[in-house]
Protein backbone atom coordinates (compact mmCIF):
# COMPACT_ATOMS: atom_id res chain seq x y z
CA UNK A 1 0.00 0.00 0.00
CA UNK A 2 1.28 3.50 -0.82
CA UNK A 3 -0.15 6.95 -0.22
CA UNK A 4 -0.84 9.12 -3.25
CA UNK A 5 -0.69 12.90 -3.53
CA UNK A 6 -3.70 14.99 -4.52
CA UNK A 7 -4.33 18.72 -4.74
CA UNK A 8 -7.78 19.56 -3.37
CA UNK A 9 -9.10 19.61 0.17
CA UNK A 10 -11.98 17.37 -0.90
CA UNK A 11 -9.73 14.32 -1.08
CA UNK A 12 -8.61 13.52 2.46
CA UNK A 13 -6.67 10.39 1.59
CA UNK A 14 -5.67 8.46 -1.48
CA UNK A 15 -3.72 5.24 -1.58
CA UNK A 16 -2.75 2.52 -4.01
CA UNK A 17 -3.61 -0.98 -2.93
CA UNK A 18 -2.78 -3.70 -5.41
CA UNK A 19 -4.51 -2.86 -8.67
CA UNK A 20 -6.86 -0.45 -6.90
CA UNK A 21 -6.72 3.22 -5.97
CA UNK A 22 -8.78 4.03 -2.88
CA UNK A 23 -9.88 7.64 -2.45
CA UNK A 24 -11.57 9.13 0.61
CA UNK A 25 -13.64 12.21 -0.17
CA UNK A 26 -14.99 14.68 2.37
CA UNK A 27 -17.41 17.60 2.20
CA UNK A 28 -20.43 18.92 0.39
CA UNK A 29 -19.80 18.98 -3.35
CA UNK A 30 -21.51 21.34 -5.75
CA UNK A 31 -20.63 23.35 -8.83
CA UNK A 32 -18.37 25.56 -6.72
CA UNK A 33 -15.91 22.81 -5.80
CA UNK A 34 -16.68 19.87 -8.10
CA UNK A 35 -14.00 21.07 -10.58
CA UNK A 36 -11.43 20.43 -7.83
CA UNK A 37 -12.65 16.88 -7.36
CA UNK A 38 -12.61 16.39 -11.12
CA UNK A 39 -9.00 17.49 -11.27
CA UNK A 40 -7.95 15.13 -8.50
CA UNK A 41 -9.77 12.07 -9.81
CA UNK A 42 -8.77 12.47 -13.46
CA UNK A 43 -5.17 13.08 -12.39
CA UNK A 44 -5.13 9.95 -10.25
CA UNK A 45 -6.58 7.89 -13.09
CA UNK A 46 -4.02 9.27 -15.55
CA UNK A 47 -1.07 8.61 -13.24
CA UNK A 48 -2.10 5.25 -11.81
CA UNK A 49 -4.36 3.64 -14.46
CA UNK A 50 -6.01 1.53 -11.74
CA UNK A 51 -8.19 -1.46 -12.53
CA UNK A 52 -10.43 -0.33 -9.68
CA UNK A 53 -11.12 3.18 -8.44
CA UNK A 54 -12.74 2.94 -5.01
CA UNK A 55 -14.42 6.14 -3.83
CA UNK A 56 -15.27 6.26 -0.15
CA UNK A 57 -18.07 8.84 0.13
CA UNK A 58 -18.95 8.25 3.78
CA UNK A 59 -18.00 11.85 4.60
CA UNK A 60 -19.94 13.36 1.71
CA UNK A 61 -23.36 14.37 3.02
CA UNK A 62 -24.39 16.20 -0.14
CA UNK A 63 -23.59 16.41 -3.83
CA UNK A 64 -25.28 18.00 -6.82
CA UNK A 65 -25.44 17.03 -10.48
CA UNK A 66 -22.05 18.57 -11.23
CA UNK A 67 -20.48 16.10 -8.81
CA UNK A 68 -22.42 13.28 -10.43
CA UNK A 69 -20.98 14.38 -13.76
CA UNK A 70 -17.48 14.12 -12.28
CA UNK A 71 -18.15 10.53 -11.18
CA UNK A 72 -19.43 9.61 -14.62
CA UNK A 73 -16.48 11.27 -16.38
CA UNK A 74 -14.10 9.36 -14.12
CA UNK A 75 -15.83 6.12 -14.97
CA UNK A 76 -15.73 6.83 -18.68
CA UNK A 77 -12.01 7.58 -18.51
CA UNK A 78 -11.32 4.45 -16.50
CA UNK A 79 -13.32 2.28 -18.87
CA UNK A 80 -10.88 3.04 -21.67
CA UNK A 81 -8.36 0.87 -19.85
CA UNK A 82 -10.92 -1.68 -18.69
CA UNK A 83 -11.27 -0.25 -15.18
CA UNK A 84 -14.29 0.04 -12.93
CA UNK A 85 -15.47 2.53 -10.31
CA UNK A 86 -16.68 1.37 -6.90
CA UNK A 87 -18.69 3.62 -4.59
CA UNK A 88 -19.00 3.04 -0.87
CA UNK A 89 -20.33 4.87 2.18
CA UNK A 90 -23.24 6.48 0.38
CA UNK A 91 -25.20 8.85 2.62
CA UNK A 92 -28.97 9.20 2.06
CA UNK A 93 -28.91 12.44 0.05
CA UNK A 94 -26.12 11.19 -2.19
CA UNK A 95 -27.78 7.82 -2.64
CA UNK A 96 -31.06 9.53 -3.55
CA UNK A 97 -29.46 11.63 -6.26
CA UNK A 98 -27.62 8.64 -7.71
CA UNK A 99 -30.92 6.77 -7.85
CA UNK A 100 -32.59 9.64 -9.70
CA UNK A 101 -29.66 9.59 -12.14
CA UNK A 102 -29.93 5.79 -12.41
CA UNK A 103 -26.24 5.48 -11.70
CA UNK A 104 -26.55 2.27 -9.76
CA UNK A 105 -26.49 0.52 -13.11
CA UNK A 106 -23.04 1.70 -14.15
CA UNK A 107 -21.16 1.99 -10.84
CA UNK A 108 -20.44 -0.86 -8.49
CA UNK A 109 -21.98 0.13 -5.15
CA UNK A 110 -20.48 -1.79 -2.23
CA UNK A 111 -20.90 -1.81 1.55
CA UNK A 112 -17.31 -0.94 2.41
CA UNK A 113 -13.80 -0.63 1.03
CA UNK A 114 -12.99 -4.24 1.89
CA UNK A 115 -15.75 -5.50 -0.38
CA UNK A 116 -14.40 -3.42 -3.25
CA UNK A 117 -10.88 -4.75 -2.69
CA UNK A 118 -11.81 -8.45 -2.62
Amino acid sequence: MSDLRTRSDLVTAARKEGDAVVVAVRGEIDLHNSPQLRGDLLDLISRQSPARLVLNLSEVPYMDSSAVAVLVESLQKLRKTGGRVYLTGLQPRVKGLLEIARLGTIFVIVADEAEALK
Partner: protein
Amino acid sequence: MAENSKTSSPATVAKPGASARRLRLHATSDPANLAPVRRACEKYCIEHGLSPNAANDVGLCVNEAMANVTRHAYAGATDRPIDIVCEEVPTDQGGGVRVSIRDWGNGVNPATLPGCEPNPETPGGLGLICLRRLMDEANYVPQPDGMMLVMVKRKGV
Protein backbone atom coordinates in the same frame (compact mmCIF):
# COMPACT_ATOMS: atom_id res chain seq x y z
CA MET B 1 -42.32 43.95 -0.61
CA ALA B 2 -44.33 42.88 2.45
CA GLU B 3 -43.37 44.18 5.88
CA ASN B 4 -42.60 40.77 7.22
CA SER B 5 -40.32 39.91 4.35
CA LYS B 6 -36.67 39.41 5.08
CA THR B 7 -34.05 40.57 2.64
CA SER B 8 -30.43 39.70 3.02
CA SER B 9 -27.31 38.47 1.35
CA PRO B 10 -26.79 34.68 1.32
CA ALA B 11 -23.98 34.97 3.83
CA THR B 12 -26.21 36.45 6.49
CA VAL B 13 -29.59 34.77 6.07
CA ALA B 14 -29.13 31.85 8.41
CA LYS B 15 -29.94 33.60 11.67
CA PRO B 16 -31.06 31.14 14.36
CA GLY B 17 -34.71 31.43 15.22
CA ALA B 18 -35.58 33.63 12.28
CA SER B 19 -38.98 32.78 10.87
CA ALA B 20 -39.97 35.50 8.43
CA ARG B 21 -43.05 34.81 6.35
CA ARG B 22 -41.05 35.47 3.23
CA LEU B 23 -37.34 35.02 2.59
CA ARG B 24 -35.87 37.13 -0.18
CA LEU B 25 -32.26 36.61 -1.19
CA HIS B 26 -30.19 38.63 -3.64
CA ALA B 27 -27.28 36.56 -4.88
CA THR B 28 -24.91 36.60 -7.77
CA SER B 29 -24.38 33.77 -10.22
CA ASP B 30 -21.11 32.82 -8.52
CA PRO B 31 -21.26 29.09 -7.64
CA ALA B 32 -19.81 30.02 -4.24
CA ASN B 33 -23.35 31.18 -3.39
CA LEU B 34 -24.93 27.79 -4.04
CA ALA B 35 -24.31 26.31 -0.61
CA PRO B 36 -25.39 29.31 1.54
CA VAL B 37 -28.53 29.88 -0.54
CA ARG B 38 -29.38 26.18 -0.47
CA ARG B 39 -28.96 26.03 3.31
CA ALA B 40 -31.05 29.17 3.83
CA CYS B 41 -33.88 27.74 1.72
CA GLU B 42 -33.73 24.40 3.55
CA LYS B 43 -33.89 26.22 6.89
CA TYR B 44 -36.89 28.26 5.73
CA CYS B 45 -38.67 25.08 4.63
CA ILE B 46 -38.10 23.40 8.00
CA GLU B 47 -39.33 26.51 9.83
CA HIS B 48 -42.47 26.51 7.71
CA GLY B 49 -43.54 22.95 8.27
CA LEU B 50 -41.84 20.85 5.63
CA SER B 51 -40.22 17.59 6.66
CA PRO B 52 -36.42 17.37 6.63
CA ASN B 53 -36.54 15.17 3.55
CA ALA B 54 -38.85 17.60 1.74
CA ALA B 55 -36.61 20.50 2.74
CA ASN B 56 -33.61 18.61 1.36
CA ASP B 57 -35.45 18.12 -1.93
CA VAL B 58 -36.09 21.86 -2.13
CA GLY B 59 -32.44 22.59 -1.35
CA LEU B 60 -31.18 20.32 -4.12
CA CYS B 61 -33.61 21.83 -6.62
CA VAL B 62 -32.60 25.38 -5.68
CA ASN B 63 -28.96 24.34 -6.16
CA GLU B 64 -29.68 22.80 -9.55
CA ALA B 65 -31.81 25.70 -10.73
CA MET B 66 -29.19 28.29 -9.76
CA ALA B 67 -26.41 26.25 -11.37
CA ASN B 68 -28.45 26.06 -14.57
CA VAL B 69 -28.85 29.84 -14.52
CA THR B 70 -25.09 30.30 -14.21
CA ARG B 71 -24.19 27.74 -16.85
CA HIS B 72 -26.91 28.42 -19.40
CA ALA B 73 -28.80 31.70 -18.86
CA TYR B 74 -25.59 33.57 -18.02
CA ALA B 75 -23.21 31.42 -20.12
CA GLY B 76 -20.88 30.89 -17.17
CA ALA B 77 -20.71 34.49 -15.96
CA THR B 78 -20.39 34.60 -12.17
CA ASP B 79 -21.25 38.24 -11.48
CA ARG B 80 -24.85 38.40 -12.68
CA PRO B 81 -27.88 38.73 -10.38
CA ILE B 82 -30.11 35.91 -9.19
CA ASP B 83 -33.04 36.63 -6.86
CA ILE B 84 -34.52 33.87 -4.76
CA VAL B 85 -37.79 34.16 -2.86
CA CYS B 86 -39.24 31.55 -0.50
CA GLU B 87 -42.80 32.01 0.72
CA GLU B 88 -45.51 30.03 2.36
CA VAL B 89 -48.31 28.63 0.21
CA PRO B 90 -51.62 29.32 2.01
CA THR B 91 -53.36 26.26 3.38
CA ASP B 92 -56.42 26.88 1.22
CA GLN B 93 -54.08 26.63 -1.77
CA GLY B 94 -52.66 23.31 -0.63
CA GLY B 95 -50.00 24.54 1.81
CA GLY B 96 -46.26 24.13 1.50
CA VAL B 97 -43.47 26.38 0.29
CA ARG B 98 -43.10 28.21 -3.02
CA VAL B 99 -39.64 29.10 -4.27
CA SER B 100 -39.13 31.58 -7.10
CA ILE B 101 -35.79 31.99 -8.83
CA ARG B 102 -35.42 35.01 -11.10
CA ASP B 103 -32.63 35.69 -13.55
CA TRP B 104 -31.92 38.36 -16.16
CA GLY B 105 -30.22 36.04 -18.62
CA ASN B 106 -30.87 34.88 -22.18
CA GLY B 107 -34.50 33.98 -21.51
CA VAL B 108 -34.22 30.43 -22.87
CA ASN B 109 -36.79 28.14 -21.26
CA PRO B 110 -34.91 25.01 -20.15
CA ALA B 111 -38.16 23.06 -20.08
CA THR B 112 -38.36 23.34 -23.88
CA LEU B 113 -34.97 21.73 -24.41
CA PRO B 114 -34.97 18.09 -25.60
CA GLY B 115 -33.64 15.04 -23.81
CA CYS B 116 -34.75 15.10 -20.20
CA GLU B 117 -34.98 11.40 -19.38
CA PRO B 118 -32.20 10.16 -17.10
CA ASN B 119 -29.36 8.55 -18.96
CA PRO B 120 -26.57 7.29 -16.73
CA GLU B 121 -23.95 7.78 -19.41
CA THR B 122 -24.83 11.44 -20.02
CA PRO B 123 -25.75 13.14 -16.74
CA GLY B 124 -26.33 16.54 -18.36
CA GLY B 125 -29.91 17.58 -17.74
CA LEU B 126 -30.04 15.87 -14.37
CA GLY B 127 -30.88 19.17 -12.71
CA LEU B 128 -34.11 19.48 -14.67
CA ILE B 129 -34.95 15.88 -13.91
CA CYS B 130 -34.56 16.63 -10.21
CA LEU B 131 -36.94 19.57 -10.49
CA ARG B 132 -39.57 17.41 -12.14
CA ARG B 133 -39.15 14.44 -9.82
CA LEU B 134 -38.72 16.18 -6.48
CA MET B 135 -40.98 19.24 -6.66
CA ASP B 136 -44.76 19.18 -6.84
CA GLU B 137 -44.74 22.05 -9.30
CA ALA B 138 -41.91 23.51 -11.38
CA ASN B 139 -42.76 26.03 -14.06
CA TYR B 140 -40.60 28.40 -16.05
CA VAL B 141 -42.32 31.76 -16.49
CA PRO B 142 -40.73 33.87 -19.25
CA GLN B 143 -40.04 37.48 -18.28
CA PRO B 144 -39.48 40.44 -20.62
CA ASP B 145 -35.83 40.53 -19.56
CA GLY B 146 -35.05 36.99 -18.43
CA MET B 147 -36.73 34.02 -16.78
CA MET B 148 -38.42 33.09 -13.52
CA LEU B 149 -38.67 29.54 -12.23
CA VAL B 150 -41.52 28.96 -9.79
CA MET B 151 -41.39 25.74 -7.77
CA VAL B 152 -43.78 24.44 -5.09
CA LYS B 153 -43.17 21.74 -2.49
CA ARG B 154 -46.26 20.63 -0.58
CA LYS B 155 -46.28 19.58 3.05
CA GLY B 156 -46.40 15.87 3.66
CA VAL B 157 -45.29 14.88 0.18
